[in-house]
C-alpha cells in the first residue's frame, strides 16, 4: 500500500492503494465512481472503457501504478460536444436495455466520433466490436452513433 496520486475527471486525488490494483477497482471501490463497470476483468468486453489522456482504454487491465501523470476521464466526467451528441442520441434512441454495458459503449462511441467525424458502418464495427452487449442493443447503438455524427455536423 502507498499513496498514489491520480488525475481524474479534472481533479487530483490521492489514494492509499496497492500499485497493482487495476484502475477499474480504484474508480469503483476507492473513488465511488461506479459508472464504469466490471464485466470480464481481461479487457474483452469493454464495460470498463474510460479515457486515459483522451484515448479509450480498458480500466480493468491497467494497473494504477502504470498511470503516471496521465489524466483519466470516466463516464461521470466526460464532457464536450461529442459526449453531448452521443448521450443525447443514446437517450433519444432509447439505446439501453439492461444498461450495464452502456457506459462503455458511450465512451467508445465518443472516442470514435472524436477520431472520425462521419463514421461508416465499418468504422463503427471496428471501433465498437470490443464492447459486448448481451441484450444486443447493437441496432440502436449503430443508429445512435450515426445520429450523433449528424448532430455534430449541423
Amino acid at each position: 500500500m502507498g499513496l498514489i496520486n491520480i488525475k481524474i475527471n479534472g481533479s487530483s486525488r490521492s489514494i492509499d492503494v496497492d500499485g497493482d490494483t487495476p484502475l477499474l477497482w480504484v474508480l469503483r471501490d476507492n473513488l465511488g465512481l461506479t459508472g464504469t463497470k466490471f464485466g470480464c476483468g481481461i479487457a474483452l468486453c469493454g464495460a470498463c472503457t474510460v479515457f486515459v489522456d483522451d484515448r479509450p482504454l480498458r480500466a480493468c487491465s491497467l494497473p494504477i501504478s502504470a498511470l503516471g501523470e496521465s489524466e483519466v476521464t470516466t463516464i461521470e466526467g466526460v464532457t464536450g460536444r461529442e459526449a453531448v451528441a452521443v448521450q443525447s442520441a443514446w437517450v433519444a434512441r432509447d439505446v439501453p436495455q439492461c444498461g450495464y454495458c452502456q457506459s462503455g459503449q458511450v465512451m467508445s462511441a465518443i472516442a470514435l466520433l472524436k477520431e472520425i467525424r462521419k463514421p461508416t458502418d465499418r468504422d463503427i464495427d471496428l471501433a465498437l466490436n470490443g464492447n459486448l452487449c448481451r441484450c444486443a442493443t447493437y441496432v440502436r447503438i449503430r443508429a445512435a452513433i450515426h445520429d450523433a455524427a449528424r448532430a455534430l455536423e449541423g
Partner: protein
Amino acid sequence: MKVIGRVPESALSRRLVLAGTAAGVASLLVPVTLVSSDARPSQEQTTYDITDWITIAATGEVTLGLSQPEVGQGSYTVLPQILADELDVEWQRVKVRFVTGKEAYKIAFKNEAPAQKEGASMSTTALYERLRTAGAAAREALTRAAAEKWGIAVAQCRTEKGFVINAVGDRLSYGEIAPAAANLPLSARPRLKDPNQLALIGKPTARLDSQAKSIGRAVFGIDVSVPGMLNAAIRMAPCFTGAVVEIRNEAEILKRPGVHALVRIAAVDVANEEAGSQHPALTRPPRDNAVCVVADHFWQAKRAVEALDVVFDPGTGRDLSSAKIDALLQAALDGDAAVPVIEIGAPRQILRDKAASVIERRFVLPHIAHAPLEPVNATASYRDGAIEVWGSIQSVDACREAVATAVGCATDAVSVNVTFLGGSFGRKIVPDYVVQAVQASKAVGRPVKLIRTREEDTQHDVFRPNAGARIRAVLDEAGYPLAVHARVAGQSLFGATRKSWLDRTPEGSWDESMVDGIYNQSYRLPNFLVETVDTPLPIPVYFMRSVGSTAAVFFWESFISELASRARIDQYVYRRNLLTADPLALRVLDAVAQASNWMTPSEPDLFRGIAYNCYIGRGGRFKTYVAEVVELAPVDDKLKVNRVFCAVDPGLAVNPNTLAAQIEGGIGFAMTTALHSRITFSNGGADQSNFFDYPLLSIDEMPEVVPIVLPSDRPPQGFGEVVLAPLAPAVAQAVLQATGRRLDVMPFPDAVFRT
C-alpha cells in the same frame, strides 16, 4: 439536436427536461434508496398511499410502484405507463420506485404459489389488468373525494392530468385531495378508460431509465454500497459435486493487506422445490464447496482468492464429461424407453409400413450459460438474525425464502432491495450468490458485497440444459407430412428443478419445456407422435430466456425445412399450406413473407430462410405468434446474416418502442446462441470461463432487424422471450440454400459460413 427515429414529440420534450436536470432526475430513477446520498428523497414530505401501487404527495407528486425487476425488458417504463394512463396523470412528472411486500405484487407462472418475480415473459401480460384496475380505482377514489369536498355528484366531475375538474371548471389537484382519497374504499371493478381515451397505452413511449443508463448513473447490484461494507471474492469447487477439503495457506492469506477473513461457504445447490416453496429451491448439502475472502476492497479479496492454496474433493460427479453426456443423449434417442407426450392417428404403424421412405434427421445442442454482462453479485447484511440484502435479484420471494432457509430464520426476517439488473435472462432468479453473500456477512458481522468474477460466473452458472432430437417422417403424395415421430432427449429442466411442473402419464412424466413448439403447434399432422427422454445429469440447470424452445423449435423448424426441401416446395408455401387451420399463424407468416418480398426471387448472392413459431406461455397463459425471414449474404470472405425480418402478433403492444427493442435484442441474443454458445464439461465441471472461450455476439455480427408488429385486439401477450426460437432454424435454412449443408448442431460451425 436533430433527432431521427420514431420517438414522439411528447417524449422529446420530456427528454429536454431530463437533460436540463440530469443529476436530480437520475436519482429518481434509482430504485433503491440506500445506495448513494443523492438517491435518497431530497426532503421528507407527507405522502398518501391511494392503492398498493400509487402514492401521492401533498405537493401532487405521484410515485408509481414497480413490482417487477427491470432486467432490460422495459418493465420500469411499461408497467408505470399502464398505471399512469388509467390514473390520468402527466407522464412527464411521475416518479417510479421499486415496491415489495404485498400480495398484489405476486404472480404465478403455472401451478406454483404466487411470488414476486420477473420471468416467463409474464410481467406485462400478468399485470396488465391489475395495473389498469389499480390506476382506475385510484382515479375513481380521487374523483369521489373531490366530489364530496364540493358536495356534488361524482358524475359532475372529470379528471385531467393530475386534477379533478367539475362542471363549472373548479380544479382540485390530486395532491390536495389525496388525504381524503386515501381513506376511501377502493372499487374492485372501477370503470376503465375506453380504448379511444388511452393516452399512453399502445403508444411508443420513451424509456424512463435511458438517461440514467446513458450517463453512468443507474445503480446495479454491483454498485451498491452500504455503511461499513466489506468486499468479498469467491472460489468455488471446480466440480459441481466438489467440497473444500483443506486450505493450506490460511494463515498467510489472513496476513495479506486488507484481508479480514476467510470464510468457508456451505454449498447452495439448485434443487427441486419443497411443498409450498417458491422456485427455485436451494438445498444445503452438508458440505462446504467454496472459499471466500473478505477484504476492505474487492481487488484485495480477488488477489487473495487467487493466492489460495485450497484442496477440493471432486465428489461423486468427478467423471462427468461432454463425451459421456453426448453418449447418454444418443442412447436416449435410439433406445426403447421414452415417454409419449402426444400420439395422434397411427404414426408408429405408418412409419413401420413405409420404412423405406422415412426421412430422418438428428440434432444435438449443448448446455449453454446465461452470461449476463453483470456477473452475479450481492450485498448482504446479517445483524442479530435480521438480514437485509441488496442486488440484482430477479425473484424477490425466491431470494427471501432461500436466504431464510439457509440461515434458519423466518422469511419475514429477510428484506430484499432490488436494483437495476445488469442482464439476467433467468440467471438471477436463482439466489445462490445471495446466500453466499449472507454467509460471508454472518461470518464477519459486517455487511459484505460478494462479486463473482466472470470465470466463477461462467463456470458456476445454472445452465440451460442440453437437448437432442431424432425426428422421422413419411410424406404423402403431395409432399406433406403423413406421419411424424419426434423424440427429444436431454437433461430435463423440470425434472431437475420443478418436478411439480412435469406432466404425469401412466407411462411416465414428461417435461413440456423439452418439446415446447413441437407438441403444441398448429401444423397439419394427421399422424403424429412426440416423445421425451430425460437423461439426468449432475449439472446445475435453470431457465434461460426462451427456455426449451430455442432447442425444440430449432429441431422442429429445421425438420420442416427438410421436408419442404425434399418435397421441392417453397419453404413459405409449405408452411402456409400446413397452417391453414390457424389464421393468426398465417397472418404473421404472410406478413413476414410480404415484408421480405419472399415470393420475388432474390439476388443470386442472397440466401434466405424462413421459420415460424407460436410461443405459448407457461401454463398456457399466452400465445405470441412469430415468423422470421433471415437474409444471408457474402461479406468479405464469409456468409453473414445481414438482415432479419421479424413479424409478431403480440396482442396489444403496450409500448411499441420497448417491444421493438425486444425484437432487435432478442434476434441478437438468438444469434449468440446460434453462432457461439457452448459449454462443455470435463472432470465434473464446466470448461469455459470467460469471453474468449464463451464469446458473445459483437456489433459487427449483428444483422439489421426489420420489426413488423401486427395490430391485434387481443390483450398484451408475453414478449421478452418469443422472438428467439425461429432465428436459428431460419439461418440454418439459408445456409442450406447457400451451401447445401445441413446444420444439425448448435453453435453452427464457423466453417460453414466461410465462402
